[in-house]
């Protein structure tokens, strides 16, 4: 719907809302905080830093979790996510909204992480990852600690995967992205994503053998 009008007032037709303008700063911030990502991204692309701040607060923990799983440590993960957000702020005017803001940010953070990994001199391989000390091949780990130990072992096994496999697995299994979204994030076809997921799962299954 498009409603182009001139500003001449219509007699007796004052449709102005009762409360104008909006109230104090807190009220404004609360109002902005209820907006969905699409609206916020459009506002931010036109220079509204308040709208962008809401997006940053909304997505920072999730993106930090992604970067931490991809990079293996908090410091590098924070650098990657911070760089990604600032890059996004500068590039928002070019953001065409063909994907959701969330998927777009996943893509930027993933690319930052892959660049960081490429600069690292010696990536781990599955063979070099020691088994966790708690594991005894002849007896199961104590039940109480089993969950934590398995999660820790899986985190370590993840870091031994090739970056491309790791990205696909983390986006699918820990962040719940669909194949189409992962393909967009990593810039590959859905078929390639499926193949990488299969290989990642097989390698991780092998690494998690002591926990069967």
């Amino acid at each position, binding site marked *: 719907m*498009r409603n182009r009008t001139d500003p001449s007032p219509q007699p007796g037709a004052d449709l*102005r809302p009762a409360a104008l303008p909006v109230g104090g700063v807190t009220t404004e911030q609360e109002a902005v905080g209820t907006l969905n990502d699409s609206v916020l991204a459009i506002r931010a692309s*036109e220079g509204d830093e308040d709208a962008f701040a809401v997006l940053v607060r909304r997505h920072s923990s999730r993106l930090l979790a992604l970067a931490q799983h991809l990079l293996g440590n908090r410091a590098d993960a924070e650098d990657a996510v911070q760089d990604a957000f600032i890059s996004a702020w500068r590039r928002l005017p070019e953001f065409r909204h063909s994907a959701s803001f969330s998927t777009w940010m996943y893509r930027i953070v993933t690319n930052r992480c892959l660049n960081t990994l490429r600069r690292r001199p010696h990536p781990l391989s599955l063979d070099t990852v020691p088994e966790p000390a708690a594991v005894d091949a002849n007896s199961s780990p104590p039940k109480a600690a089993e*969950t934590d130990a398995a999660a820790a072992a899986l985190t370590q096994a993840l870091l031994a995967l090739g970056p491309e496999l790791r990205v696909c697995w983390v986006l699918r299994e820990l962040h719940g992205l669909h194949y189409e979204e992962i393909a967009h994030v990593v810039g590959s076809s859905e078929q390639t994503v499926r193949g990488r997921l299969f*290989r990642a799962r097989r390698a991780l299954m092998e690494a998690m053998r002591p926990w069967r």
Partner: protein
Amino acid sequence: MALDDPHPTSSDKPAGVHAAAAEASLHPDAELLAGAELLPCGRPLGHAWQQARSAAGAADPHSSRCPHCREAIEGLTALDRATRALRAEEQPDGHSLATRVINAVRSEVRLGTKLLLDDPDHDLRIAESAAAKVLRRAADTVPGIRAASCRVAAAKDDHAVHVVHVVVITVAATLDQPLRGRAEAVRQAVLHAAEHVLGLAVTTVDVEVNAVLGASRVHGDERHELSER
């Protein structure tokens, strides 16, 4: 979980695909064959994995007897358990990171075009982004309306004595009330804010409703509540 998807598990693939994963790094197309890797019993590994997560798998006589299929199923079950544990871990606290990002962004605010205010001397200016922020907030006060884009530009009117402006605002709206009345309310709210809050001369307000907003919620995942134009 990932195995709810149709992996390429057809059993009509040639037996030579056992080394598909090793070759995949050399030949990208080989990745397509990864799911068809055969177990020693002749069944594709992907098929055993699918059975691990389906009720039909437990009833399959082959799977329950075959040591290779059982190992594949147990392996996936263990991985699933660890994956659930990892997924359940608390997300890192991104608060301080977010604060750093926001501070950095605020230090490089894009001011963009400057607009001339309608003051007596006509020498005051305001950044378009700042003016747009005020006009969006005004539009947001209309029930069931959320402003998205808001552009303000000087009107091309050779006959105008002073500089006047045109506002083009796009909004998302709920469908629980007639759109026409609320579009008019948006126009009035924007005009009121332009004149009384900003002191900006606006001659025309274009209101475009280009998205539908869920009536019960105005935030969250936009894919479920906001249909693009």
